[in-house]
């Protein structure tokens, strides 16, 4: 464990910092550390296992739809399911999620219907008019910009003395954006109830982490803002859930923000618009399949006698049905009239815009 001594070991030390790591399940599903209370009963982990499986089923289906021209660009969370579900499952309903395009599984967990998620990725604004948690932010595409939004939402919670938490998701690449740092500095300064999660899948499209930053960890970026930072094994859903839960508890108690780095690996392409073979070898990827979170948890559950082959077959069937039904509802979604692009621009459409709307409708009428 390297100790960055700064530049002159003769000088007196005026501040010291440490980054710690949380992990419970080994790649092969053995316990390496005593479990946190919530995870002691294996059955408590089954809903998480189900949700990870459902996400992987959705991802596979979405890619199939995209390949056959029935969906737009889509990014799978293959291999990252523990980060996505471990995080969402640590939140309460009243908390506010700031998802990126990797968090489709978190939307599912928080009650967004499959057809709504698919509508979004098909290029339909109704995909962000979610019925689930109405205060959750829409998926953030512009990397990093969500961090200050989360700080603003958390500020509102604090001002109104609501015991609510903003959970801001970002990738490893996002940590290079100044936005993140500005928001973390503000959040730490005002002890805002926000948790920053770095879903470190070690790639930003084609850029590997070692060409994104020189730091030994991403968790240490918290030190620049004065908030605690922690690394968790992002392929161990128990570690993710526990790390996020503790951070949320601190935020809710008024003890301020935390940065959690969850280390995982992007087993899939960046999105369906990407071909990862251009910039990384299949062998690297294969090696990381040994670490993936679903098989890991399954091994543990089976070893604990909490999961059987029959359970697995039933689960796969259920997930398949759930997704297929969602896809049917997605296909059945009526088209939006073109002029609806004006409908939610302002609370009331100004006259000049009304003229443009009429212009569009006239044009459609005339063929």
């Amino acid at each position, binding site marked *: 464990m390297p100790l960055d001594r700064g530049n002159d070991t003769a000088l007196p030390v005026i501040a010291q910092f440490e980054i710690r790591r949380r992990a419970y399940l080994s790649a092969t599903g053995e316990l390496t550390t005593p479990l946190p209370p919530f995870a002691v009963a294996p059955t408590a982990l089954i809903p998480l296992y189900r949700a990870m499986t459902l996400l992987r089923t959705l991802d596979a289906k979405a890619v199939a739809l995209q390949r056959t021209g029935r969906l737009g660009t889509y990014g799978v969370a293959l291999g990252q399911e523990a980060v996505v579900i471990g995080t969402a499952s640590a939140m309460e309903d009243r908390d506010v999620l700031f998802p990126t395009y990797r968090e489709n599984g978190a939307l599912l967990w928080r009650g967004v219907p499959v057809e709504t998620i698919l509508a979004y990725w098909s290029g339909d604004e109704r995909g962000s008019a979610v019925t689930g948690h109405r205060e959750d932010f829409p998926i953030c595409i512009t990397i990093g910009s969500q961090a200050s*939004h989360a700080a*603003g939402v958390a500020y509102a919670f604090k001002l109104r003395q609501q015991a609510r938490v903003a959970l801001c998701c970002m990738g490893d690449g996002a940590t290079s954006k100044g936005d993140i740092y500005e928001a973390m500095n503000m959040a730490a300064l005002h002890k805002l109830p926000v948790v920053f999660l770095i879903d470190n899948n070690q790639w930003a499209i084609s850029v590997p982490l070692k060409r994104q930053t020189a730091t030994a960890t991403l968790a240490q970026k918290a030190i620049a803002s004065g908030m605690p930072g922690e690394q968790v094994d992002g392929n161990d859903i128990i570690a993710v859930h526990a790390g996020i839960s503790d951070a949320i508890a601190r935020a809710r108690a008024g003890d301020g923000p935390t940065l959690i780095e969850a280390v995982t690996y992007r087993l899939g392409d960046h999105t369906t618009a990407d071909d990862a073979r251009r910039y990384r070898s299949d062998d690297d990827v294969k090696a990381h399949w040994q670490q993936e979170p679903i098989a890991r948890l399954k091994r543990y559950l089976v070893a604990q006698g909490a999961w059987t082959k029959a359970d697995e077959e039933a689960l796969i069937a259920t997930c398949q049905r759930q997704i297929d039904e969602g896809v049917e509802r997605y296909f059945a979604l009526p088209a939006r009239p073109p002029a609806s692009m004006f409908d939610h621009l302002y609370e009331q459409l100004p006259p000049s815009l009304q003229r443009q709307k009429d212009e569009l409708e006239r044009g459609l009428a005339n063929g």
Partner: protein
Amino acid sequence: MAELTLVEAVNLALARAMTDDPNVVVLGEDVGVNGGVFRATVGLQDRFGPGRVIDTPLAEALIGGMCVGMAAQGLKPVGEIQFMGFMYPCIDHLVNHASRLRTRTQGRITCPMVLRMPTGAGIRAPEHHSDSTEAMLAHIPGLRVVIPSSPARAYGLLLAAIRDPDPVVFLEPTRLYRSIKEDVTDDGQALPLDTAFILRQGRDVTLITWGAAVRETLAAADDLAKDGLTADVIDLATLKPYDEDAILASVRKTGRCVIVHEAARTGGFGAEIAACIAERGLMSLLAPIERVTGYDTVVPLPKLEQHYIPSTDRITSAARRACTYG
């Protein structure tokens, strides 16, 4: 009723809005203890507390982004950017988020925020303190861009901006902050947005302007009156969405039009007004449209800034050219 400067009127409107609505919060650099570098927020932190009047860290993108998050939660954030030249890091939040949140979520999440910023040259300030790039903002769908030209209009329009359910950029001409006084009644009466103010009624020429340039434009109207030429003087006040009908009605009457703004000419908002007339009022034009504007140069430092800002003389001679044309 009291004689107030424009910056005092801004302060009065902020205090009124914060009194009327506990959701209104003010945030920015030095807005708290110091009351803002122009004193626009003076006294607010004492009255409403540091929770609602927030000295932020030095980060404009943060201010813009926090306003989006606060507004999404139903607060009414009024962010202050210290000078327009420091606003550019906020544009990402204005274009990609504030102006789109309602559309993106089909009305589920809205963004009732106000971003205040001083604008324009003429106060002998250092580099980057004299920008008037309102045209960049007035191009953004979903946004409102408002700029007052007198203390009373500053009071009424700022109240309207804060009460508006959608995002508003509120530009405050530094050149007018203390140079004019006007009676302002603290009656909580907002003035209408999206509506131009007809400051003078005339027959011969239409002078269209906004912000600080209103002062020189009115002076030009006075000069023209000496030659027996009467002008409509239109203060656009809201640039986005703007009052096309007021412009077209006046041009239909006068047939001659001079557009005045301090910003650089090319791609300035005067171009939009000229385009509107060329599309919908062309046949009533008796003379070419004239634009009297800042030049397409970097705003000069104080030694030369007065040669950049449209002068009364430049406006008057453009209007004379328009009136004598053909």
